[in-house]
């Protein structure tokens, strides 16, 4: 007993000596970089500690200039949708509207109101399959990605390789076989034909897998020691630490799901989705040029909204919160 106490005292002494040395070194370094106060002020702004104001401004200007090129098509399609028919056919197209009008949009909804199947049905189809695909995909992919990144089970390497390989495979002939498989499973002309292929894509899985692999193993071990099974560890410990990745996943899935077109898999009129019907409306000729632009803008709105919601909810990183090594 006494021995251990002495030992402990010796250890604390040496630790203190080491700490003092480290502190000295630290002060020296901070003096070199400027005063300690300066470092503190910078930190309190919630910014990176390293970086200068001049650099920030230069970066901002550079990004703003590049950004104009990036926003150009978005701006252009919105502008086009507000042009009256007389301005739409001016060549070369003007980059501004002289007399903005909402008639393209009102025409779009007039045409949509005269369809054989009520327009609300297509809206419902699209909203329904988008929500189902997004929820299913996020759930299924998160479960799977946790195992592929954090569990060492027999078959681990094979499955990981399979996922990466599948991302590289592109074939113009795959759709034939996909149709054959789905026909055999009696899925043609059902909602499942629209939903399941989108749930089974591997890009989101690989994204989540890669992000989860950066999580500290110590958290997972701690959860295991506390008696959490794989499923609980995944959803209560790992997922809350993965907000940025989940937000990105949701953006990808939602965008993909919203643009799903049935193609050959669904030909029943009341199962078709909004993009399908919009392109059908738009395909009916040059007189509907304005409607084409209007429908493109209308279809763009939901993914944009989801993007902004998802991104603005991921302000600061949560990774490895609650970890102190």
């Amino acid at each position, binding site marked *: 007993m006494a021995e251990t106490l002495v030992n402990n005292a010796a250890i604390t002494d040496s630790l203190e000596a080491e700490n003092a040395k480290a502190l000295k070194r630290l002060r020296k370094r901070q003096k070199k970089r400027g005063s300690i106060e300066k470092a503190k002020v910078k930190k309190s702004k919630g910014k*990176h500690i390293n970086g200068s104001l001049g650099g920030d401004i230069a970066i901002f200007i550079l990004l703003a200039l590049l950004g104009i090129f*990036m926003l150009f098509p978005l701006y252009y399609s919105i502008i086009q949708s507000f042009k009256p028919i007389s301005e739409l056919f001016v060549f070369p197209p003007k980059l501004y509207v002289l007399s903005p009008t909402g008639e393209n949009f009102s025409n779009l909804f007039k045409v949509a109101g005269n369809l054989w199947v009520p327009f609300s049905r297509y809206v419902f189809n699209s909203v329904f399959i988008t929500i189902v695909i997004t929820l299913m995909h996020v759930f*299924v992919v998160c479960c799977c990605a946790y195992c592929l990144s954090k569990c060492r089970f027999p078959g681990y390497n094979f*499955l990981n390789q399979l996922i990466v390989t599948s991302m590289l495979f592109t074939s*113009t002939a795959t759709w034939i*076989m996909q149709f054959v498989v789905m026909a055999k499973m009696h899925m043609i002309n059902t909602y499942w034909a629209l939903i*399941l292929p989108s749930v089974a894509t591997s890009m989101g899985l690989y994204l989540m897998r890669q*992000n989860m692999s950066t999580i500290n193993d110590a958290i997972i071990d701690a959860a295991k020691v506390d008696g959490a099974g794989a499923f609980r560890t*995944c959803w209560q410990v790992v997922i809350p630490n993965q*907000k940025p990745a989940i937000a990105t996943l949701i953006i990808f899935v939602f965008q993909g799901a919203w643009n799903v077109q049935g193609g050959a898999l669904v030909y029943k009129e009341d199962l078709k989705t909004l993009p399908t019907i919009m392109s059908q409306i738009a395909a009916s000729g040059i007189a509907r040029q304005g409607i084409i632009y209007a429908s493109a803008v209308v279809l763009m709105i939901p993914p944009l909204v989801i993007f902004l919601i998802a991104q603005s909810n991921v302000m600061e990183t949560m990774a490895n919160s609650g970890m102190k090594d």
Partner: protein
Amino acid sequence: MAKEKTAERKKPIEPGSWRHTLHEMKMNQACYWMMLPFFALFTFFTVIPVVMSLPLGLTSFNLVQFPRYIGLQNFYSLFVNDDVFLIAVKNTLIFAIFTGPFSYVLSFILAWLINEMNPFLKVFFTFVFYAPSMTPSAFVIWQLVFSGDSYGYLNSVLLDLGIINTAKQWLTDVTYMMTVVIIVQLWTSMGAGFLALRAGFQGIDTSLYEAGAIEGIQNRFQELFTITIPAMGPSLLFAAVLAISGAFTVGSVGAALCGMPSTAYAVHTIMNHAQDYGSIRYEMGYASAICFVLFAVMLICNKIIRGVLSKYTDN
């Protein structure tokens, strides 16, 4: 108690043996259940169709009659008889070399620069640079910019400035086509990889930066190479895979801007070639053989990149 221990010692479980594998599988039972939903769907909708369509490369298949086995003849004519395919391979490699690494590095730099900003600007600029990916067929606008008559935006600006004195045929003149399509391709190819890298940056533990500052890191670049890149290896690998598959499957941009087939096949790629045979001529067997070659090229490329990035990643 003691008896149990001796019983255990009698039958040691050696790693690598069947019993060991079985034991491991039992230990990880929960994992298999958790992976089951995804892999069940994945098998039905991706693995089976892909495996079933691989043998199509060895057949002559016109979508109407049943596929007829013709051995390696497709591959033979691909490399020996098909002049256009060799042009397509050359073009695809040029595109891949220029757009792949450039869009990868560019999206990394952009994601990094954005990461240095305050929260509002972060969201704003992420939106700005992802916007083309959310605008359907956004690259069509480049048709107006590069239009061949004097009303095309680029031509009219250059004419006004007196840099050129006749309208250039940006999209049909062989000397410019490649450059124009590479620029537009770069511009469109950033989306998904950029967003994934943004997530990777946001996933980095901020206390690492504080520790770095205390340890005496002087500027942004030192911070980038000593902390940021090692911390986001997995995201870099993900973006690399996206960049590879994006770079080798280019084709839609060239086809939309320059038409298909383009003048003298100047921007014709392997992907265009496959679409040509797959959805215009309905020679599915031949199209499958083309896709198979493309797949093989991408696999090799992926192996190389993995080797380069392997020190930052676990798998």
